């Protein structure tokens, strides 16, 4: 199953994306998160040390985390700001920390946190606005390694069909 979290208010984009995915018979869930109550990660580390696997913040992200855990792929549709994804998009990734444990290991030649679960969703981005796509792809690659999964790439909104082809 593919989980798509739309953090923008662009419902037309979601509608267009749904049509493409249904045409391709892709099994997906889409969450419209722009108006949801999703706090930023506060870095308390409770999800590692006090209540392992459970975020201390009780808000609308809880449902996203449960679905992300079950999904094969997690795609975030995000606005951009200051040359990167905006805070709403970034919050979705910062809050994924309960899927990670405090324990460390070497994956390749770099330290990484040991993942909490055996299966972790591959990660992709769809963005609105003008940014350095190469940088977003680089970020996506590193982010996916952190989460023990594969990067699916960063796609501008006019490449929805190309993104859907990876799903």
């Amino acid at each position, binding site marked *: 199953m593919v989980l798509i979290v739309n953090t923008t208010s662009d419902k037309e984009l979601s509608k267009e994306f749904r049509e493409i995915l249904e045409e391709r018979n892709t099994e997906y869930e889409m969450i419209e998160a722009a108006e949801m109550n999703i706090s930023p990660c*506060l*870095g308390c580390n409770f999800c590692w040390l006090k209540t392992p696997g459970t975020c201390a913040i009780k808000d609308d992200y809880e449902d996203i985390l449960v679905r992300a855990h079950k999904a094969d792929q997690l795609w975030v549709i995000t606005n951009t700001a200051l040359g990167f994804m905006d805070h709403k998009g970034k919050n979705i990734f910062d809050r994924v920390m309960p899927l990670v444990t405090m324990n460390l290991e070497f994956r390749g030649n770099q330290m990484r946190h040991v993942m909490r679960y055996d299966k972790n969703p591959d990660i992709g981005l769809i963005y609105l606005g003008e940014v350095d796509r190469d940088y977003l792809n680089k970020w996506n690659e*590193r982010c996916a390694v*952190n989460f023990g999964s594969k990067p699916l790439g960063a796609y501008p909104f006019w490449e929805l069909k190309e993104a859907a082809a990876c799903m």
Partner: protein
Amino acid sequence: MHVIIFNGSPRVQKFSNTDKIISSFAEGFCERGNTYELYSISNRREWGDARRAFNENKNILIALPLFVECVPGLMMEFLETLVPKTESTQISYILQGGFAEGSQLRCGEEYLEKLTHELGCKYGGTLVKGNNFMLRFMDEMQVEKETDGYREMGKIFDRDCNFFSEECRRFTGPEIYSLPVRIMLDILFKTAFKNTAISLSKKLGCTKPLDYKTLETDEQWSEDVTVQQRAV
């Protein structure tokens, strides 16, 4: 020299590793009479004053922890409220993180240079260093010892007004650990480090193993309860 310092950590100041680093850095920086103002992004009530300070000053230092390879979401939210400048203001950064290798912070460092230009400012470099995760759990003496290097970097910033020197580059430490060090650390991760983490978690009142599979276990628990209820 007067510098505006933003603590970009979303963690409350009392437990902020970045705050401890800033304190040590500022000691060195102020030794010869420099001054600074500190604004904590974790406190939204300070955002108005922080924006005003950004607008009115030409020397800005942003200290931040790396969150998922880049700027924390809360700091991003604050930055989005700033109006890019047209006059010559310099922004320098202290980027810190938990992982010890310098290479872990380079993706974030690359963005900080882009960010500076997006804000219409001049880039004053980034002081990069990891291995700071444990600071919040240390006592005052240990923190002073662990952050002593930042005090020296404060003096360098007083001298150069940027982080481009060889001393700053060396301060990062190894980019990647050598294979023998990785093998040794891997053993420590499975033994001493794990035990330290368990001990910290117990102090915080944790009653579950650190690798507890909450979503799978709780789902199973929920299903079991449903089956029992049906049986009744």
